[in-house]
């Protein structure tokens, strides 16, 4: 598989702040690449630089093997973008909005009509063709936003947090649609804060923060980077601090935190840990409602790599 995007040593500053710092990565044809990072990490800036909307200080960007410039109309014709904020005309119906944006790429009316109908089907908006955006719910609006960005059947699609503020049903429908697009041959760059989405749809993930790459790989590869191997969750109405201190001293325990009636015990190694905890609870007559084991999630890795301090 060839590289559809190659970003090399990309640097971009906003006055004193370095938004992108020597950022390099590639996107391979046919994959869904998850671009992860906390707020202000440089995800949207990276996409806007690739799209040639933003100037950058140093580095190079090639898309489909060519330098990306504002007048690279041949490259732009193969791109589809779904921005973070909904960008549709309130005065045009669902059908007209999709037709308008599709028409910026596809001149032939018959082809366009077919593509618009297909996009409407893909995001399940057939019943709402004649609706104006103001009459649509948040989820339907997001689906319209996606349809406007992909109706022209682009080969490379950028989806910048397309599921923000969307209910689980709509989110599921959107994610299924994105996987369909990949299956139809499109390459997708996907940014989100939802780790379960990344685990569900992304073939590869890049975690960036402060404008540079912290880690990259498949979700399994990234999980292996975590310092912990297993988490034991104990749900209990109360937990004496002396027991927590004792648990912390167990072999292979990395940390133990009791918050909101849940004790989370993280282990560096995972063998018989659940059995040992249950025995300890029984021996000390500690009442609990549930106890179970979990593998580390991408979220754990993400927090480990980017830190737990609050961002904007």
């Amino acid at each position: 598989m060839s590289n559809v995007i190659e970003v090399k040593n990309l640097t971009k500053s906003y006055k004193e702040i370095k938004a992108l710092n020597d950022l390099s990565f590639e996107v391979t044809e046919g994959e869904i690449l998850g671009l992860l990072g906390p707020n202000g990490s440089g995800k949207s800036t990276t996409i806007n630089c690739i799209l040639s909307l933003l100037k950058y200080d140093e580095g190079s960007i090639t898309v489909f093997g060519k330098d990306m410039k504002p007048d690279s109309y041949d490259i732009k014709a193969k791109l589809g973008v779904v921005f973070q904020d909904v960008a549709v005309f309130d005065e045009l119906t669902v059908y007209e909005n999709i037709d308008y944006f599709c028409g910026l790429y596809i001149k032939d009316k018959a082809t366009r009509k077919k593509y618009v109908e297909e996009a409407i089907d893909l995001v399940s908006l057939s019943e709402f063709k004649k609706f104006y955006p103001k009459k649509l719910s948040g989820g339907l609006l997001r689906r319209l936003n996606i349809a406007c960005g992909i109706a022209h059947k682009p080969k490379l699609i950028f989806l910048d947090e397309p599921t923000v503020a969307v209910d689980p049903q709509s989110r599921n429908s959107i994610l299924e649609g994105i996987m369909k697009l990949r299956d139809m041959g499109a390459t997708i760059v996907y940014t989100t804060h939802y780790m379960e989405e990344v685990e569900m749809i992304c073939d590869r993930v890049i975690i960036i923060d402060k404008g540079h790459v912290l880690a990259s790989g498949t979700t399994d590869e990234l999980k292996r980077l975590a310092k912990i191997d297993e988490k034991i969750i104990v749900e209990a109405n109360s937990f004496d601090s002396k027991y927590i201190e004792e648990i912390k001293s167990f072999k292979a325990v990395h940390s133990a935190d009791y918050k909101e009636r849940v004790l989370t015990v993280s282990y560096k190694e995972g063998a018989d840990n659940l059995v040992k905890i249950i025995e300890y609870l029984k021996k000390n007559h500690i009442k609990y409602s549930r106890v179970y084991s979990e593998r580390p999630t991408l979220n754990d890795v993400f927090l480990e790599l980017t830190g737990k301090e609050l961002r904007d």
Partner: protein
Amino acid sequence: MFVHNFKYSLKALFRNKTLIFWTLMFPIILGTFFKMAFSNVTSSEAFKAINFAVVEDDNFKNDEVFVTVIKELSDEDGDNRIFDTTYVENEDEAKELLVDGKIDGYLVMPDKKDDTPGVTFINNGINQTIIKNVVEEIALNEKIGNEIGETIVKDEMAKGNFNIDIDGIYEKVMEKMSDETNLLDKSANKLDYSMIEFYTLIAMTCIYGGMLSIASINNSLANISQKGKRVSVAPTRKLVTVLSSLLASYVIQLVGLALLFVYTIFALNIDYGDNIAKVILLGAVGSLAGLAMGLFVGTVFKAGENAKTGILIAITMFFCNFAGMFGITMKYITDTKMPWLTKINPVGLITDGLYALYYYNTTDRFSADIINLIILTLVLTAVSFFSIRRRRYDSI
């Protein structure tokens, strides 16, 4: 691509209720209120001849045009009476009458024929504006008459006729002047200065059309809106999207203006004079100026669409004030004290153009207004295009 973008821009703009209200409905509503307000004023206050004095020295007596026209405009039994004229022997007498409040202004003819006749006032107001405008027009028509006379003499000499018939030429000049000018048509019935308010209303509508170009430009530029970002990543030239959107805005502007003309002419009985083609031309050029004004506000100011629309409304009302929308006196003060403002005030230029078409049958003043509007449009458009020429942004 141009047609596609034009079609959808037109659709989106026509369905934007806020824009349609401000650009199409609001001027009609305001015009109706004007009519209601001014019909009461005009029915309760019949036109009263203006107290005016003329220094009847040799300079005045030797100027047949001024003597004839002032006499005609002061004739108690005539249809054209504007002035209640007192003839005095010298300027001191005239000054005394002015200071005593017995007259609103007086005229002193210059020693040199080409110099501008002197009109003196103490106060500013509607009567003073009328005096100034009438004297200016007489002088202008006299100049035209002289030029026509010169042309006739030259024509006769070119034909080899060196026995010039002075009386015949005078008659021909007067005949031509009556065709080309309407000096004596300035009857009291026609001097309805509430017309200025309606002219400023037309001008305001032209400039309010800028709201449409603000909306259009907002949808086309990546650094202004999300829709602009989406349009900018498409394989379409920025010039094509911007121009097609602006054309859609212009079409709606013209539709709005046409509706306003139809409504004011047929429902409100507003008279725009006989030269309706030139009135339409002025409206079309004025709308272009409005479009350019909106383009300028939309691209130069960094703010949201609502804030930009607010800025445009504020600028328009500022210009409307100086063009005389809220009182003719302000137009007079601006014309005399701040002539530079009149030249850069699009509302003032459109108002003045309509006024010139109605009161003067000569086109000098109208043409000057049109040229100034075109210059203003070109300058605003050039500045706007300069600011949107960037293809990549520092931040969005």
